């Protein structure tokens, strides 16, 4: 049963882990290295890991019976490493100004990336679960990282306790599935479930419900989202960015792979529950966002809304939907990072994060205001930017699976979302700044921002390459392995 393990397949993770240790040690032994440079160093490591994982492009290997190293993994490895690197870069200034123990901070980010990679790679519940905990733990610690910021502590506490609680529930669900199907391998579970399940359906459904709950918590779907706004608001802003990008992306990578690999046979039983969650999530996220006065909190709710759209992809689970979901996920991650970069830069200068305090930004830092505007418009699904194309494809995919009504609801709420984004834009362009002084130009951050915005435009104007990559990767995750695009799926309507 124990296959010979090819450890080299996990090279990127080892690199990250080693790099994390390296970052900690180098601060110990070479204090002369500035705090900011640490961040860039860590970013370097993450980027390196991302590059390293490109070795396995168009490859389909397995690590034991635990993890796949295939295009799906590679895609997400690159994405996660990219997110990690970006966050490290945009953290640098913030950390050096406002946080203690920078090296551990970066180390934790890198470890979080490992966890995320694991979640995407695993095709087995135990590994996936452990990776998930690794990611979560790092995030718990990082959320509470601003030790003397009361909101940070509180956010940490909420995130931590509720995380533990939900992971307990998740585990119980796993237990039931394991008990009923006798395995934690996605494929095996899939086979069992595609057979006759009438004798075990009680256990299966209960387990399914609890797993949906646990995953819902991870990706912040209503009603498991409650911690999100507080965690976002309390955490140090770069960490907010990390949560919104990394943990959501990882959560969906896991969610998608699990449901495509294991639960697809039962799709007709759970699709409408996911659809219900999606509706609730979109509605609550977008409607409550209208009321927000704090930028981070606004982005928190908006990201909840985005989760609603992403759940469309799960509800309409098919090869197309999966690709559309991942595409939107990528677009969302890039856009959201761009938005947060702007928020961080503004916070670095002014220490302000209320929407009302953004007034006159366009006067003081036109470039920043422009980028934030672009990011927000993209989140609202406006054309020229990523949001439009990805949403269009995602919704169309849902409509293709007889979920036109759901696509309609989603379209409606993405229209509602435009309102609160416009509120922010109004503040930036109409408000009169207190003082006229221009802001300095932090070249490194601005370059990062430029790259992200470029990404937003690329996905918005020519998503073909990205989408093709995604197509290839998502083909591998379905029951019965490789799939031609559009081909009919087990149990799919």
């Amino acid at each position, binding site marked *: 049963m124990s296959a010979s393990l090819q450890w080299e397949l996990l090279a990127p993770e080892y690199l990250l882990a080693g790099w994390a240790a390296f970052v900690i040690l180098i601060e110990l032994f070479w204090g002369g290295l500035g705090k900011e440079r640490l961040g860039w160093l860590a970013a370097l490591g993450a980027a390196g890991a991302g590059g390293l994982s490109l070795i396995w492009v168009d490859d389909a290997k397995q690590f034991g019976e635990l993890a796949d190293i295939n295009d799906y993994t590679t895609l997400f490895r690159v994405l996660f490493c990219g997110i990690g690197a970006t966050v490290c870069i945009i953290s640098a200034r913030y950390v050096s100004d406002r946080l203690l123990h920078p090296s551990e901070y970066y180390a934790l980010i890198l470890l979080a990336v490992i966890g995320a990679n694991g979640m995407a790679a695993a095709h087995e519940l135990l590994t996936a679960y452990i990776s998930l905990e690794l990611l979560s733990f790092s995030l718990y610690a990082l959320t509470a990282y601003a030790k003397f910021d009361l909101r940070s502590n509180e956010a940490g506490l909420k995130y931590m306790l509720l995380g533990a609680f939900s992971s307990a529930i998740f585990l119980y669900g796993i237990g039931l599935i394991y008990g009923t199907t006798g395995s934690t391998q996605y494929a095996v579970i899939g086979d069992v479930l595609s057979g006759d399940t009438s004798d075990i359906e009680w256990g299966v459904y209960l387990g399914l419900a609890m797993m949906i709950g646990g995953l819902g918590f991870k990706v912040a779907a209503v009603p498991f989202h409650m911690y999100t706004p507080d965690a976002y608001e309390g955490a140090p802003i770069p960490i907010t960015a990390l949560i919104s990008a990394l943990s959501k992306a990882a959560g969906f990578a896991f969610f998608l792979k699990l449901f495509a690999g294991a639960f697809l046979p039962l799709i007709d039983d759970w699709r409408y529950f996911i659809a219900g969650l999606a509706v609730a999530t979109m509605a609550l996220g977008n409607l409550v966002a209208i009321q927000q006065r704090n930028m981070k909190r606004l982005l928190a709710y908006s990201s909840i809304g985005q989760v609603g759209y992403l759940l469309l992809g799960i509800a309409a689970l098919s090869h197309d939907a999966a690709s559309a979901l991942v595409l939107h996920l990528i677009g969302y991650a890039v856009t959201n990072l761009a938005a947060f970069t702007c928020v961080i830069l503004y916070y670095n200068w002014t220490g302000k994060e209320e929407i009302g305090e953004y007034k006159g930004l366009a006067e003081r830092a036109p470039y920043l205001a422009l980028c934030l505007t672009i990011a927000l418009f993209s989140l609202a699904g406006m*054309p020229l930017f990523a949001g439009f194309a990805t949403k269009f494809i995602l919704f169309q995919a849902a409509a293709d699976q007889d979920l036109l009504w759901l696509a309609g609801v989603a379209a409606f709420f993405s229209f509602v979302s*435009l309102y609160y984004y416009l509120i922010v834009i*109004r503040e930036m362009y109409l408000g009169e700044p207190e003082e006229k002084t221009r802001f300095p130009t932090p070249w490194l951050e601005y370059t990062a921002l430029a790259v992200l915005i470029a990404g937003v435009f690329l996905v918005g104007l020519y998503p073909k390459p990205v989408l093709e990559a995604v197509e290839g990767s998502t083909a591998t995750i379905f029951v019965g392995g490789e799939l031609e695009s559009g081909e009919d799926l087990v149990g799919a309507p």
Partner: protein
Amino acid sequence: MDLVLLALIVIPLAVCPLFMLIPSQYPQLSRYLAALAGTALLVLSALVFIVYEFDGGSGLRFELQWDWLENIGFLGENGITFYLGVDGVGAPLVLLNGIVIFAAVFVSWNITHRTKDFFILLFLLVSGVYGVFISQDLFFFFFWYEVAVLPMYLLIAVWGASSEFPTFSRPKEYGAMKLTMMLVGGSVLIFIAIFALFVEAGAGTFDMTVLREQSLDEDFQKWVYPLFMVGFGVLAGMWPLHTWSPDGHVAAPTGVSMLHAGVLMKLGAFGILRVGMTLLPEGAEFWAPVLMALGVTGAVYGSVSALAQTDLKYMVGYSSVSHMGFVLMGLASMTQIGVNGAVLQMFAHGAMTALMFTNVGALYDQAHIRDMTQFGGIAKRMPRHSAFFAIAGLSSLGLPGLAGFVAEFHIFVGVFRAGYWWAGGLGILSAAITATYVLRMLARAYFGPLNDKWDGLKEMRLGEQFAGAVLIAMILFMGLWPAPFIDRISETVEMIPGITG
């Protein structure tokens, strides 16, 4: 020549970064650049209009089709293509857009606050409008449709003007927000309709030339067409979803009002024609009476409300509602004559309403009020301005020899031909009401003894005069010699399924 359409989209997009490069302390530079781009666009648009001639089939010319996304998932062979092409309906509207942006640049010459940002957004808007008129792919049609809405909020909210009235007030943010939200809200319906259409057609492509070949189930058409009708109708100022239009126009700066009432509102009607009626002829047939009723309501309602306005800009805004009502009537007649009239009316209204906004803006810049009851006899101080305004007004009340008459006459004939007596009669009546408010306005504000308060008024700026002259030239051209327009339009309209003779 094949790339001319591409240029129409690319030029306005390309100048945006150029504007960014211009240091903001040289606004004059950006003005010149804007003028340059505007002229280029005008020339190209005119070129398109002149060279265009119908050559059978769906009448598309200057076609250009590039792969964008295909053979992926639900997208089959050329699923989404960047497909440009102009037909006889698009050509006049392209010309119109060229003229209006050209005029708008000169009218906006006196924008001093964040000049370059203004022009960036303005040209973004223009590229969107062009895109809609020349896109033959449903995805990109909608893409550009949204692009055209994108910059509106900032354009109005930053450079607009709030207005106070005794009983109520309309801050510019309100106008801007309402406009943006209503337009995007309308596009939600379009969104849904497109999804449904794509799935139903099952051709795996958004290419409209292919989609129009699919014979879709009639019941399906019946429930999807209203989505297009209402969704585009919002932008076309269809009653009762028109309220964004007066407030939006009032709040917007002159140049934007021109583009917005002049061209943007046409996108809605164009969408109903190009997407709704072309792809879903049976649905259109089924809902034509409703559209007709809404159109007539809008026409009468708009003109009567305009009658009650004392604020010049509101009057013009409501007149737009009324004239777009005519357009919808023409479309709803589903007869070739009526639809021709509708397209003609789009052009005519575009030119004359742009002219009206030019005038109102010129007056407001000096007087800082728009309440016609407070003026009087200013024709003495601003003769040219008054003459321009009078011409615009006369065109809108349908004086033969001016563009408005040709269009409205076709619409009425078409409506009668389709057998909507009541609609035709009410339409002609509302044209008479138009005469009432136009002349009332002229008599109140421009004629009569000069009110000393306005002794200091000066003739409007040369830029504005130039813009006005161009627009008037167009109004006269179409009013006296409509054949070039009609030749282009009618053959294309003839090809549209569901259009009777």
